[in-house]
């Protein structure tokens, strides 16, 4: 019975744009990444060190750095070296920026947010 309920919940929570579902499940799959993506969406021309980005996000550097690197791996952010200093910024690729716009716009809907939170928590298990 519990398994049927789980299945029902999962189906209900999967009821979103498949592109965004994949984005939440595989790319913005943590709350820190969600915060970072929202920050860079609101401030799209930000380019800075992990220490400063952590300050902007109001979080700890050790928590932010691996998440930023995963966003780089998933081609949402880009990382370049300025001298010896790694600098992070949102990718300039228009398709990815459009996808980020779509995700942030979708987050304005409470139902979408509930579903996204569900998938993030599920992915963290």
């Amino acid at each position, binding site marked *: 019975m519990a398994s049927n309920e789980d299945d029902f919940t999962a189906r209900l929570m999967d009821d979103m744009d498949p592109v965004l579902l994949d984005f939440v499940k595989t790319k913005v799959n943590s709350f820190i990444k969600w915060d970072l993506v929202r920050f860079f969406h609101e*401030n799209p*021309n930000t*380019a*800075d060190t992990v220490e*400063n980005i952590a300050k*902007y996000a109001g979080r700890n550097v050790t928590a932010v750095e691996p998440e930023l690197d995963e966003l780089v791996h998933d081609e949402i952010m880009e990382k370049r070296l*300025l001298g010896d200093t790694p600098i992070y910024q949102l990718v300039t690729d228009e398709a990815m920026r459009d996808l980020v716009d779509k995700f942030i716009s979708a987050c304005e809907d409470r139902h979408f947010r509930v579903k996204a939170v569900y998938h993030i928590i599920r992915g963290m298990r």
Partner: protein
Amino acid sequence: MDRVNTGVSGLDKMLGGGFLRETANLVEGAPGTGKTTLGMQFIHHGIVHQNEPGLIITFEEFPKQYYHDAAAFGWDFKELEKKGLLKVVMTSPEVSRLDIESVGGMIERHIDEMGARRVVVDSMSHFARITQDPVELRSLEFQFINALKREKLTALLTRESPVLLGESVQEASIGFIVDSYIVLRYVEIESAIRKALLVLKMRGSDHAKDIRQYDITTNGFDVQSKFEGQEGILSGNPRKMAASFVEAFVKK
């Protein structure tokens, strides 16, 4: 001489028509005096009225805040960014310095892509985060300003003054490096706070020497008449001039 209008007609008159092109111009003032507003107006006017795209480099205030504040004056910065005429770049002094000194850096790329002619740096005070040594700081600021000039930008640089009323006690070596130096001050007159503007310096050009009142209206900066019958304006607590002095010298 080629002038760059600031978008504030009263200030342009004080400057003899505007800033000189490809110069660095410092605007110093306490919190709330309108340094950032003047910077945004300078950029907006350049884009909309002079066909001169612009760049805002911010070291502390989030770009989101600029979009919001600009909208209050009817300036749609988001739309200007979409059109490729503006970029509000958030970074740190250390990164921007390294970036602009490198070939093909992010700032250079933005300037080239947009054909930017104007830049606002808000604020230069943050360069003090890089070094405590005043000699090194002056050298860093000098190098940064020269890089902006190399890119053929006319720059409006803001600087924070920690003093709300009266004259700043900060050492201001940057005042020697820049081409013009504008001071914004709060002044207490008859139990009310008013705002005063003075052009302290302008290299290569004459400029108004009087202290003007200004206000920030729904249209932005509005420079008004000079303070009449008052002395010691920059002290923050001006005194009324003696009636006989006003009669003899001011009213004539």
